[in-house]
């Protein structure tokens, strides 16, 4: 299975719009949304069916049994995350608790235990020909990197033999991003021609390079700022990064998305441009490292 991960520093750059177009164009049988904090892909590539839902248990959260507690204060003093407070009794703030287990270890009377806690929900849409793996993290749960790993695992298990999988990546450069990056064959970075977009792009490239993953870059809304578009193209050239295309700003794209369609489902300028970027990206993805296909 070749895995193509589509990334952009921030949301709003059209990452999901482009991922959905790629899924349509490649007729991919397997795809996933790794933005578990704010998944959007299902809004346009919904399967029209109910997904199979599985509770996702993150790390267990600490709980104090007030009947056993002798109020020695050890747990509160040793919790590095300020998750334990005392009002009338000793209590754990489950949003702040990082599940490290220190309080359980220090409690002299075994009043504390770590209890399983639901941290999100995995969703798997399947029909005869397609598999779509996604998830939603519960608000304030901190373990999104692990949930991303589960989304990818669920995707692979459902159809291990398929040739191509397309993954809508996680934003940022923190743990969910790192989790979405691991094991993929190539990343496509969707950049925006803005100063902030360029800054974000450079940060992603740095991390992806650490993993030794193939990198391709395309620019979305390139015509909103020609000077910055040129800067990005030049940057790619200087760094020897493959540049696969420029997609124009297109108000039809917004309309398509609001109708739950991809931009290649309708006849529009951005749809045309994304086809070209797609062809180049696929060429790079399936090219062997020794240069032949």
């Amino acid at each position, binding site marked *: 299975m070749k895995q193509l991960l589509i990334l952009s*520093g*921030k*949301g*709003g*750059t059209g990452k*999901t719009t482009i991922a959905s177009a790629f899924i349509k164009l490649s007729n991919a049988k397997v795809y996933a949304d790794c933005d578990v*904090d*704010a998944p*959007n892909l299902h*809004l*346009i590539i919904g399967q029209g069916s109910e997904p199979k839902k599985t509770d996702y248990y993150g*790390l267990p959260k600490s709980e104090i049994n007030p009947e056993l507690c002798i109020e020695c204060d050890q747990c509160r003093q*040793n919790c*590095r*995350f300020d998750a334990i407070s005392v009002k009338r009794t000793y209590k754990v703030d489950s*949003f702040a608790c*990082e*599940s*490290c*287990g*220190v309080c359980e*270890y*220090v409690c002299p009377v075994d009043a504390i235990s770590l209890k399983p806690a639901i941290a999100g929900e995995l969703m798997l849409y399947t029909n005869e020909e397609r598999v779509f793996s996604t998830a939603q*993290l519960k*608000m*304030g*749960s*901190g373990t*999104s*990197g692990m949930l991303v790993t589960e989304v990818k695992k669920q995707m692979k298990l459902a159809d291990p033999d398929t040739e191509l999988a397309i993954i809508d990546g996680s*934003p*940022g*450069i*923190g*743990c969910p*991003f*790192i989790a979405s990056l691991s094991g993929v064959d190539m990343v496509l970075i969707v950049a*925006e*021609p*803005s*100063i*902030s*977009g360029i*800054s*974000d792009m450079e*940060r992603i490239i*740095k*991390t992806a390079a*650490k993993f030794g993953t193939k990198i391709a870059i395309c620019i979305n809304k390139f015509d*909103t*700022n020609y*000077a*910055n578009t040129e800067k990005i193209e030049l940057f790619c050239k200087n760094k020897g990064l493959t540049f696969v295309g420029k997609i124009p700003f297109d*108000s039809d794209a*917004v309309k398509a*998305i*609001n109708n*739950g369609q991809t931009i290649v489902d309708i006849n529009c300028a951005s749809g045309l441009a994304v086809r070209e970027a797609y062809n180049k990206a696929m060429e790079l993805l399936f090219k062997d490292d020794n240069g032949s296909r």
Partner: protein
Amino acid sequence: MKIAVLSGKGGTGKTLVSVNLAAVAQKSTYIDCDVEEPNGHLFFKPIDVQEEEVSVKIPQVDNERCNGCRKCVDFCKFNALAYIKDKLIIFEEICHSCGGCIMLCPEKALTEKEKGIGKMQRGISDEVTVYTGILDTGEASGISIIKKLLVNNKSKGDEQTFIDCPPGSACIVMESIKDADYCVLVAEPTLFGVHNLNMVYELVKLFNKPFGVVLNKCVDGENPAEKFCLEKNIKILKRLPFDNELGMLNSNAEIAARKTKKYYAIFSSLLETVKREVQYETTTNS
């Protein structure tokens, strides 16, 4: 007065709104808590920048003392420790710095060292004090940087502070809005926008924060985000138009309110609305 600006996702105009609000507020503080991809400083271009390393505590092992009992390995909930080939290996990137392993090692073979994970910068741009947190690439969590940014600002009581939050609704966002007096949610007029708005809406409700919405990139025609606000009876603070001039200024990292009178007026009136809302909230809740 602390105003947190958030959105379900990046790219919706969170930085646009918070940067311009701070700019029109004149004497104010801007804190960029989007430590994974801080962009505010690109707009403010602060001068007199002072930098401070931010570090976390990470265990280090004295191999002479370690007898390989693996107690620390079994304890670590994050699998940051492994005992391989007669040696304790520490995966620093995934350690959460809980201190547990150090506490329990029977041989006292573990001690703590400081490890830099990023930095905090403080600079001045006109009358705005600009704080920026920057997470090093390859590090998993920027929470400790955010904590530091916010603690640093605690002392200044009445000055207006604008917090540019990280995207999403995960724990890192909660940390950023904890002390806020008011939350401004920024939303885009798309199906995605509504979905993302709904998540931060749930978040501010959970935290019982007063809040209002800024509708960004408004064009003629249907606005799903606006519909959502009307349905849920959410206060709309402002509708920002989609226009090329604003888009261009923004993509060139210019502060629109400092560039043209028109945008100065728009963001001042937004600030006035927010201030009124905060006042209203404090009088009704006291």
